[in-house]
């Protein structure tokens, strides 16, 4: 059997053919093509088609788009009707030839299987178009070829217009800040997924695969049932701030919240053919709401606790006091002591308060020079700050009533230091009244003594030794100390 010479066949084809490489440079052209374009091969060889035949307008764009589609998809592309002017060489008289073409672009694979060349068959249909123009005159006859062309022309225009609109919508959806996807069929196969939903789901490839295959994590949640429901009933389903967990490739499981709406997409016969998915990541808002709720709960808790504390102080002050006047004065003073401790803490956003500042605040009312305070700066955690503030207040008022601060010459000496042992740090504080009257032990255990024991030993887990020695009250306090005040709930 004789072999066909394809080169010769290409040369002999009566219809114009040419071949471009992926950079749209001429690789081959048959004599029919050279004739219709009025060019010699040495003029075309290696030239870019758009440099050779420039067309800055819409039709140039259409032709370029068709080439790109072929290169990207590896599929043939048809331009049924393309007006495209080409320059007439000077040797043929110069000027522009207004031509109408019908072109088919066919991909030719290179050695690696990818599209390396485009084969163009471009038929010059200018004569047919001119005949059509004549047919538009009154009583004109429309030849068969013209009406065929007209149909091709209209179809091409509609197709192009629809494609352009679809492309515009696709781009809008693609870049939209909310999540958008189109699912098709009963297995919810992705036919579209925009950037927002793709990145939300961890960058997985979605288009082309069924939800169960591409997103097993999502398919295992209620979303799958809701999609099935929309597909089955043709009724939309939506939800607000719905918890969702996503297994993002590389970063693992994340727990998030979404607003979503699933709407049915109907076929012409009224059956459901797919689901339109919209979604919005609401995680940030949900977390902000949750934080706010926790803060409000915490605030409520603290307010109630503070009220209970004030209630307790009132009740015990009234019980212990000899007269309403004394009760009123000591109640006010105790509330002020509590308030002072809170003031110091709120200044540091409840991070802690300085021991010296707390003691100074409670001893200041008795005048300058009545107290010797010795110790390194020690920052107390909120709980310890409030407790020591209240204890200092009780010790100072007791000294003012019965002890060293009840005379003009007595003084208070308070010394403290931090001791470090294996078990941790301890704050040791010694309170001593000096130069006061002879002290007699109290007849009963009052609020102050109970508070010292209950708050420093019980609440703070320390030890105390309160002694009513004749030459002055002493109180040795030892409480566990933590450098980094841990988070506390009052």
């Amino acid at each position, binding site marked *: 059997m004789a072999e066909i010479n394809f080169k010769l066949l290409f040369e002999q084809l009566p219809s114009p053919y040419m071949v471009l490489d992926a950079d749209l440079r001429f690789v081959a052209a048959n004599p029919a093509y050279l004739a219709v374009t009025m060019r010699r091969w040495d003029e075309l060889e290696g030239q870019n088609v758009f440099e050779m035949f420039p067309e800055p307008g819409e039709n140039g764009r259409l032709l370029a788009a068709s080439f790109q589609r072929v290169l990207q998809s590896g599929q043939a592309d048809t331009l049924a009707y393309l007006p495209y002017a080409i320059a007439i060489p000077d040797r043929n008289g110069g000027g522009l030839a207004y031509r109408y073409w019908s072109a088919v672009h066919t991909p030719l694979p290179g050695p690696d299987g990818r599209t390396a060349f485009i084969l163009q068959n471009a038929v010059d249909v200018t004569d047919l178009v001119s005949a059509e123009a004549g047919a538009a005159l009154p009583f004109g006859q429309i030849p068969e070829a013209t009406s065929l062309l007209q149909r091709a022309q209209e179809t091409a225009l509609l197709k192009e217009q629809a494609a352009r609109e679809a492309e515009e919508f696709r781009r809008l959806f693609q870049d939209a800040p909310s999540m958008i996807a189109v699912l098709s069929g009963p297995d919810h196969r992705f036919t579209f997924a925009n950037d927002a939903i793709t990145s939300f789901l961890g960058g997985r490839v979605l288009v082309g695969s069924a939800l169960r295959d591409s997103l097993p994590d999502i398919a295992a949640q209620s979303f799958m049932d809701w999609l099935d429901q929309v597909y089955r009933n043709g009724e939309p389903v939506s939800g607000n701030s719905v918890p969702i967990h996503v297994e993002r490739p590389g970063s693992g499981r994340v727990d998030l919240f979404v607003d979503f709406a699933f709407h049915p997409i109907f076929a012409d016969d009224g059956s459901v053919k797919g689901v339109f998915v919209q979604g919005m990541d609401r995680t940030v808002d949900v977390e902000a709401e949750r934080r706010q709720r926790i803060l409000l*709960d915490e605030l*409520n*808790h*603290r*307010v*109630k*606790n503070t*009220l*209970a*504390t*004030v*209630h*307790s*102080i009132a*009740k*015990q002050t009234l*019980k212990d006091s000899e007269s309403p006047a004394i009760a009123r004065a000591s109640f006010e003073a105790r509330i002020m002591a509590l308030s002072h401790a809170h003031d110091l803490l709120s200044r540091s956003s409840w991070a802690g308060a300085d021991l010296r500042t707390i003691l100074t605040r409670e001893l200041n009312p008795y005048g300058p020079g009545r107290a010797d305070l010795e110790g390194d700066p020690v920052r107390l955690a909120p*709980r310890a700050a409030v*407790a020591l503030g*209240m204890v200092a207040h009780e010790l100072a008022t007791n000294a003012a009533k019965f002890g060293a601060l009840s005379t003009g010459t007595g003084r208070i000496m308070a010394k403290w230091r931090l001791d470090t042992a294996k078990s941790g740090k301890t704050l040791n504080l010694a309170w001593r009244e000096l130069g006061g009257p002879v002290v007699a032990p109290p007849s009963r255990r009052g*609020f102050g003594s*109970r*508070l010292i024991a*209950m*708050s420093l030993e*019980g*609440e703070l*887990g320390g030890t105390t030794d309160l002694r009513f020695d004749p030459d002055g009250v002493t109180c040795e306090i030892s409480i566990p100390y933590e450098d980094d005040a*841990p*988070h*506390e*709930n*009052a």
Partner: protein
Amino acid sequence: MKTPEVLLGLKVFVVEDEAIIAMMLEDMLTDLGCSVIGPCTGMKQAQEMLAGSETPNVAILDVNVGGEQVYPVASVLAERGVPLVFATGYGSVGLAEQWRSRVTVQKPYTQDDIARALDAALAG
């Protein structure tokens, strides 16, 4: 409100981490004719005291104890059949699901509130 007879002589286990509030609760219970086990101001102390003391007749538990939740202590008491009262600034919504049906008393509370809560816990 007159002290209900049923409260007289009851041994009440108390967990309350705020010293000043604990002092008041101790006074209230003493006034009601009860004896107080505690008050425990920390979880560790509460667990130790629970292990070393005879079974109380009833318990009043602050929910939030020094940043910890009181439930481990509540569980031990519940296993031993001790009626429980939870004291909280949140009311019953501040309780974990499994304890919501228990008697709660909301801070700040009065002596009458405590008497009623103990009564309800003992009856329930």
